[in-house]
């Protein structure tokens, strides 16, 4: 049986490729005037940008290594170097890439990732990001500093916010020393305001999927989120999402869905499987099933950002994230998503090397099904390490799950 499924790309994507291409070009230009700060994907990017750094996000590079499937050859190099196959496969892919001197950026005729002048992490997502950055800190003998956010947060209390805000502020002396520039509060507030604008627009993009049929899928979202991750706080991200949002509104007006003949709607919980994005997207299209929402793409929505209270609001935005919360607020969040996006069932990706962003291990799927009546399926896989992924089992699981939805 041959598939006639087709992906519907956005006109705007050409602009996005240019925006991202320009970002990488500036970042890897040896003649750039700015210092380079590496930042975790939900790290204090606004502060770094506000202090005049070019900001590089190695998790984005990890995702590229996964999507290009270069990770498959590179992870074993990091394993042999002492980084276990059981830990974050972004980390092992990226360190493997560094050890071998090969990067997806080379295919864009760019040198590999830029060497850091300073590495800045936030442990709100996991400890692995800190270990990852410390490897490079040792390699290059550059400062590796960060924010230690509590994890499994229930109520985002004032005690936590004060502590995290103080930690963010305490990064400034080292950053001043590295950049050679004094901290400028007005500039910082300006970046916070730009980042907030980006968040509002990016949230608008994701919210568009609440329409029936959904004009955008989770798989589109994992590509379209690039500027929201790496260019938040910069004008170019805002300009891009205005273009994309206009196209989405056109699709909504004309009843154009990302999935032709959309019959069922699914929430994707957990990390993407980067090396299988296309084949999974096509399988869901064949099954007339739209993956309309995810907590993953929503991880770059920072609604709390407020330029009038820059440190505290940044602390709140980065502590409120799904990934660093306890199960109770996570479940309340999922319930809201299921209702808002009119979801028929939930797909839990149990990413073997990312327990911090896998939510199927502590009985949550069973509890959620009891609460919402929505069925679930759990698929074992990984974000980057395809040795942990079974193509046939995954295809059968998805097909069987959609069969089950069709009975309802």
């Amino acid at each position: 049986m041959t598939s006639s499924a087709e992906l519907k790309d956005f006109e705007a994507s050409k602009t996005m490729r240019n925006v991202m291409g320009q970002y990488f070009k500036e970042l890897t230009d040896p003649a750039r005037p700015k210092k380079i700060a590496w930042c975790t994907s939900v790290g204090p990017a606004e502060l770094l940008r506000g202090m005049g750094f070019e900001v590089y996000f190695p998790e984005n590079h990890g995702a590229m290594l996964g999507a290009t499937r270069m990770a498959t050859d590179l992870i074993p190099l990091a394993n042999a170097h002492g980084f276990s196959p059981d830990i974050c496969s972004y980390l092992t892919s990226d360190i493997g890439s560094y050890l071998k001197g090969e990067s997806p950026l080379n295919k864009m005729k760019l040198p590999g990732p830029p060497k850091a002048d300073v590495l800045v992490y936030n442990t709100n997502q996991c400890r692995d990001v800190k270990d990852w950055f410390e490897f490079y800190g040792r390699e290059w003998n550059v400062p590796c500093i960060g924010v230690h956010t509590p994890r499994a947060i229930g109520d985002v209390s004032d005690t936590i916010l004060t502590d995290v805000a103080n930690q963010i502020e305490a990064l400034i002396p080292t950053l001043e020393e590295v950049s050679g520039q004094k901290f400028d509060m007005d500039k910082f507030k300006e970046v916070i305001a730009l980042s907030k604008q980006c968040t509002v627009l990016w949230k608008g993009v994701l919210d568009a999927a609440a329409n029936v049929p959904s004009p955008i899928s989770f798989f589109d979202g994992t590509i379209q989120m690039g500027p929201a991750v790496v260019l938040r706080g910069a004008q170019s991200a805002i300009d891009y999402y205005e273009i994309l949002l206009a196209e989405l509104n056109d699709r909504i007006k004309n009843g154009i869905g990302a999935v032709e003949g959309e019959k069922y709607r699914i929430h994707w919980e957990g990390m993407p499987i980067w090396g299988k994005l296309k084949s999974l997207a096509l399988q869901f299209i064949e099954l007339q099933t739209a993956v309309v929402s995810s907590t993953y793409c929503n991880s770059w929505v920072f609604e709390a950002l407020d330029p009038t209270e820059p440190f505290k609001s940044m602390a709140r935005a980065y502590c409120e994230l799904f990934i660093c919360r306890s199960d109770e607020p996570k479940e309340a969040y999922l319930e809201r998503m299921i209702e808002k996006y009119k979801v028929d069932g939930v797909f839990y990706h149990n990413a073997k090397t990312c327990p911090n962003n896998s939510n199927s291990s502590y009985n949550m799927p069973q509890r959620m099904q009891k609460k919402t009546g929505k069925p679930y399926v759990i698929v074992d896989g990984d974000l980057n390490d395809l040795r942990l992924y079974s193509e046939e089992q995954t295809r059968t699981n998805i097909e069987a799950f959609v069969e089950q939805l069709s009975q309802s």
Partner: protein
Amino acid sequence: MTGEQTDTMQYYCGIDIGASSAKLAIIDSDHQLVAKAIGRSGIDYAKTAEQLLTELVEKESIDRSKIVKSFSTGYGRDNVPWADGKMTEIACHGKGAFFHFKERMTIIDIGAQDSKVIHLNETGKRDNFKMNRKCAAGTGAFIEEIAYRLALDVSELNALAEKSTNEVSLGSFCTVFAATEVLAKIRAGVDVTDIVRGAFNSVVKRIVEMDRVEGMLVMTGGVVANNPFLAKLIGLAFGTEAHIAPNAQYNGAFGAALFAAEQAR
């Protein structure tokens, strides 16, 4: 093949091309199984399917043109050119088992390379399902590996396990490590019957940790069809009787045939 074919006789066919073997079932208008065949899945699923069907209709003197609908299932479900539709093996095992036992049930299907737990409510609607992790433990592949290590034919295992008088435990999750444990038992002079029983117990443990059993326990697939004692052990572990579905190895193909009949209505 039972009974005479009449001009009005209609048949429905289901084919389940699994990781190891392909099973074919033909049912009549009353949904009774009238013919079945099994062969190795091989490397050309389309050819295997054609060969199985051609040989079976010839052997049973069934007029192929009277097979009005066919459904495929299993790993090779996309590779059967003459199939009118396909369903996953999860749906087909559910369909087949519910035909025999019309009540709320948990079906455990142990195949060559995967195991599935399927929950059906009292109307036969699926509430949930689960497949094993990316691992051969708790599947037919594990049993085959142990038979190989013990230089036995898989057909001998059931009788040996039943004769066991001592509980032997294999603690490892992993098929390869469990096989290594078997080597240690051989070296220690443990009776082969007890080692086989230990291997069966290992499968039981992998199954029990997959999911819960709610309602009646029905077992399907080639592993329990050939090793009913293993089904008994699984039932004991869950504290309930394990019912082996009639023609358990063909249950997926039978379910596919039922789907074919349903579509023809």
